């Protein structure tokens, strides 16, 4: 995780957006020392719910940049991700895939066989970028914990996108696994040997398949009206001047009370 949090810091810095305006709901327990360095507001939420929590943050204060970092994305968080994409809610979803929790492992992947699946796994994995793109995400990319430069660039770029962007990050599991064996370093060596950069690749072709190279890169980048854009357009049409477009950010006093 250290590699990717470094990339988070670098990506936020390159975006030019003040970290104070970035909220990072996550179901991954980042250490306070790490998050405090990032300078963002961090919320360790319930498993898989970071996108839904982030939806509340964004609609409560549209001035926030919300970057859910999700581990249980397509298990507990699946429906939230699908609908977040459909609505084009302004969220930068970082999907941290450690090959354990998301049932995505092929038999080559050491972590899958080590702990949760003593007899290895046989389930078909999800192709996250393809799924995200199909659900309406406007930006999809995948990098590994080795591609910190590209990951930082993707984060910087996606933070300026209007709508739901997703970046899948292949990263070793937390230190739990590194303590019991040298699996983490094995995975990094695995990424080095098995990944290939193909920017612009059709997301349909980037599924992770055992025995084949892992395709990384920025796959899609498009524009589509966001939830708030559509909300404002629809209600302006229906209510005319009785409607105040959403996007107004209350002052501290207004949040604290009802001052004019």
């Amino acid at each position, binding site marked *: 995780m250290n590699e990717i949090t470094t990339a988070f810091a670098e990506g936020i810095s390159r975006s030019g957006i003040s970290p104070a305006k970035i909220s990072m709901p996550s179901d991954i327990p980042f250490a306070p020392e790490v998050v405090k360095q990032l300078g963002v507001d961090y919320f360790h939420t319930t498993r898989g719910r970071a996108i839904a929590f982030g939806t509340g943050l964004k609609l409560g204060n549209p001035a926030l940049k919300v970057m859910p970092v999700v581990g249980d994305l397509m298990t507990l968080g699946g*429906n939230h991700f699908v*609908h977040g994409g459909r609505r084009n809610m302004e969220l930068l979803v970082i999907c941290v895939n450690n090959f354990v929790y998301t049932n995505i492992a092929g038999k080559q992947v050491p972590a899958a066989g080590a702990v949760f699946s003593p007899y290895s796994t046989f389930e078909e994995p999800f192709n996250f970028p393809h799924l995200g793109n199909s659900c309406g995400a406007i930006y999809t990319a995948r990098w590994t914990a080795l591609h910190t430069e590209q990951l930082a660039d993707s984060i910087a770029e996606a933070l300026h996108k209007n709508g739901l962007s997703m970046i899948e990050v292949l990263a070793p599991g937390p230190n739990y696994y590194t303590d019991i064996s040298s699996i983490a370093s094995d995975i990094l060596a695995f990424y080095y040997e098995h990944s290939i950069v193909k920017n612009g690749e059709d997301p349909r072709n980037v599924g992770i398949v055992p025995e084949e190279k892992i395709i990384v890169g920025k796959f899609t980048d498009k524009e589509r009206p966001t939830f708030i854009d559509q909300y404002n357009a629809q209600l302006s049409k229906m209510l005319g001047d009785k409607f105040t477009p959403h996007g107004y950010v209350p002052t501290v006093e207004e949040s604290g*009370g009802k001052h*004019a």
Partner: protein
Amino acid sequence: MGGKSKGSDKVKANPKEVLTGVYYIDGDVASGFGALAAGCRFIGGYPITPSTEAAEAFAKVAPKAGAVFIQMEDELGSMAAVVGAAWSGVKSMTITSGPGYSLMQENIGFGAMLETPFVLLNIQRGGPSTGVPTKTGQADMMQSRWGAHGDYEVIAISPDSPQEMFDYTIKAFNLAEKYRCPVMIMSDECVGHMTEKVVIPPADEIEIEPRRLYTGPPDQYVPFKPDEDLVPKMARAGDGYNLYISGLVHDERGYPVEPSAFKAQYVRRLVDKIRRNKDKIIELKEEGTDDADVIVVSYGISSRVAVKGIEIARERGIKVGNLRLVTVWPFPDEKIAALATKAKAFVVPEINYGQIAFEVARCSHGHANVVLVPHGGAGVHIPDDIADAIEYAFKAEGKIERVIEFKTRLERTVFEEGYTLKE
């Protein structure tokens, strides 16, 4: 526009959010209007009978006042979004019924752990499971108290009319902000769909509890350091406080900690901030209890039916007191204990097979008998049943250690004809 009122931290409601006037509306709609008047700026919900009209009412009026309604993908997401919205700095709420309420428990516990102010309206219907979607029930009362895992305290209010649905929705928001905890409006289908006159007063007659915002220097902010009343001040996301907020047991800084001393300190405060302030929180309506032989303890729609039952029993010459639990949680332990030493028995009509009746028994410490008037749901009590239960309680000899289940007309049918109903 609004401003601070004298001698209180409370402020006046924003006229833009108060739909002043006299209405003939149902309880659901009144609650939706109450939420707006209370300053709610975000409702995330998922439609479910019989609560949907409340969400519809809010969704209709919210955009004109700068508030947002979003229909989320499910109740899991609704509750998570409500907690998220609260941390963005706005007052937030969700609206649901039985099956949705079960799904929300995960993030209710999460919200309680983060000391998040939010309001949840549960228009109870018949359960368990899908139950009877279109008819009433009061069987979620214990769930409202113990629904999520772990130790925490909530506040639960049980209105009994559309006017109260408006008034107590505002009060629910005020309590949520004051104590930074989930506040449940435990209504039911009858009150939710009951249509009566509702008077919405002018904004300057509505008092609003503002958020306990911390506005000092970020480097001095300790997110979970409590004030004297055990409630800490809250900061908003995006204001530069570099928040670290976690559902893990945490210290005052918000950092995860494991030693049991911290758990005792933190979780203890989560429960104590409600328990030690319960005298300020609890609202009861009491009538004729001073010299009563039998006291009826009720809440929600059952308290409306109980009024008639009490009237009938009084006509039979029994001295009956009426104790209505407007606040159900925290429970008025001391009040029940004090009344138990004076009265002969309590009669508890509720639309379930015994939830609050057992709380009443717990608090009466064997000093007074407790008679439960059960109802399986999908309807309300017959007032004569409540009157008969009062008479039975009045005539019962000696102390009976267990909660006595009164056989209502409906229950007698079941017991006489067996558990399998014939057409």
